[in-house]
């Protein structure tokens, strides 16, 4: 074999190697066995307090299922800030909301027809978490034993509670 042939063969081998290196490869599917699940809050992780605007905005959206207008938010924020006892201010705001139309809350009859589901849904709606067994048992017993308890009362208790102030 003369030197010229050897050189040709050398370049062909180099070409084929390069082609193999840069050509498409089969895609490898890598899985880590992660199962999809619904992520909800844990009350022990709620350490940040909602500011006034966040509280009002979240509450309004929760109850009316629509966003509050910037003008209404500004007015509400100022009025709440003007009262020393924030619990009083929040309770009055909420009660004011309950006295308006357009609020989206379940009927009392629905609550009483399936208290378990109502309690779970209320915890998810306000606290973005599931109730513990103790919490479920408390509310089930309390609502069952007190015929006067309404959805409005339960919602007021949740919306004015300390946990609802945090995220």
């Amino acid at each position, binding site marked *: 074999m003369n030197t010229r042939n050897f050189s040709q063969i050398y370049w062909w081998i180099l070409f084929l190697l390069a082609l193999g290196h840069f050509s498409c490869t089969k895609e490898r599917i890598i899985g880590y066995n992660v199962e999809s699940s619904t992520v909800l809050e844990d*009350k022990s992780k709620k350490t940040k*307090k909602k500011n006034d605007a966040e509280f009002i905005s979240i509450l309004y959206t929760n109850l009316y299922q629509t966003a509050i207008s910037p003008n209404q938010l500004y*007015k*509400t924020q*100022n*009025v*709440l*800030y*003007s*009262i*020393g*006892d*924030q*619990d*009083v*201010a929040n*309770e*009055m*705001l909420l*009660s*004011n909301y*309950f*006295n*308006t139309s357009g609020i989206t809350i379940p009927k009392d009859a629905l609550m009483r027809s399936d208290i378990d589901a109502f309690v779970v849904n209320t915890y998810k709606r306000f606290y973005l978490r599931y109730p513990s067994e103790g*919490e479920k048992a*408390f*509310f089930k017993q*309390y609502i069952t034993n*007190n015929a*006067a*308890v309404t959805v409005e*009362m*339960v919602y*007021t*208790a*949740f919306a*004015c*509670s*300390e*946990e609802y*102030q*945090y995220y």
Partner: protein
Amino acid sequence: MNRKKFITKSGLALGGGLLAPYILPSGRLFAKSGTVKADHVVLVMFAGGVRQQESVLGRYLEDSQGVSGAAGNIMPNLFEGNAPNKKIAYGTSVAGKPNGSEPIPKLLTQTMEKTGLLFPEMRAQSAGHYVGLNTLLTGNPGTNQGLKVRPAYPTIFEYLRKHAGFKATDTWFIGNGIGNSTPLLNSSNHKDYGLAYGGNMFAAPVTFSGAGKEVLGNAKTYSRTDLEPMYFMKNFLDQSFALTKDQISSVSNTDEEKTQIKDFIKSVFTKQQAGQLAMPPVTDSGDAINIMYAAEVLREFKPKMLAVNISGVDSCHSNFTGYLQSLHRADHITAWLWQHIQNNIPEMSGNTVFIVAPECGRNLNPNPILDQNDWVAYDHSDANALRVWGLMLGKSVPNIRIGGEAQPVGRLTDIVPTIADIFGVLDDVNACGLIDPLARSLYQRI
């Protein structure tokens, strides 16, 4: 259990049961170490920056604008002295006459100076508004006090609630707006006191404004039967979440107190609608509106301690005529509040000490801003801005004038120990070591 053990344990349980209701939030068994001088104190924070020259010194335009022969007293309810008779611009406006030429008729038959204790030359510890207001409420010079944060040192509300055992609705701060950090003055962020001992607060012109009515006015009036389950469920939820002390973000009213406050807010809106709110004869300023709501709070809660601030005179930065008018009106509404307590709140009449003091003074020399009368304006930053006065009247307050221009007596930090002295907890407040070491009860300055 043998009989001896049974008797011992029963005795301890009975003793504990009897004593427990009397233990104060501070852990003390006995409330007061000193003599109680009166059951109620009302502090008018005569704020906005008041020059000595136009107030207690009665110099009107003579010292400020160089108008010869134009001296005179424009605060006829607070201080002695004849009104000026030249260039009257501080009154109300009547058709056909120059603006402000009609002084407001005097309300009190005798001036506060004549019936009370006047310190005509006191010293403020700061020439600024917020620090000055802090000083009036904390008794601390507040040299490290920042804006937009709660007072660094405990307020008088917290001292009284912790050491005299007052409940939250016994202590009130009525602010004249939500600007300038005013709503933060009902409590400090001090680790040993704070909101758990804070006073109740309304920034009344906002709470009871049109927006307030829209946001709160349509609130339902729940019956006690309705409220009980709500609070029961809420308390269950709160116990489960268990906030730490430093996370408490609101004044600690009991459920009954909360209900009373809510009912009060609704009643004010109702009275507003019906035009039944008691108000000063001249109510053409934000300050007058605030005093009017303070009177409503006094009438409803009969608080042990109420502080109300006004600040209209701060227009002096750019409008000297407006400043004079505000000063004249501040005198009018302060007198009206005192008169209202005496005539309309029998539980407080004859049993209240009324204290009035500005939070700071104003400069000796003017800035170059001219108003509609070509009068120069005054800011507050020099030594003259540290010159202030203080007035006390009411139950057992002696009628004396202490000190004078050449002999200053008293500091603004004296107000807190004075109030503590009135309620018999001066020793406790002093023992905390958180007030100005130079501060004294004004009773001790006599």
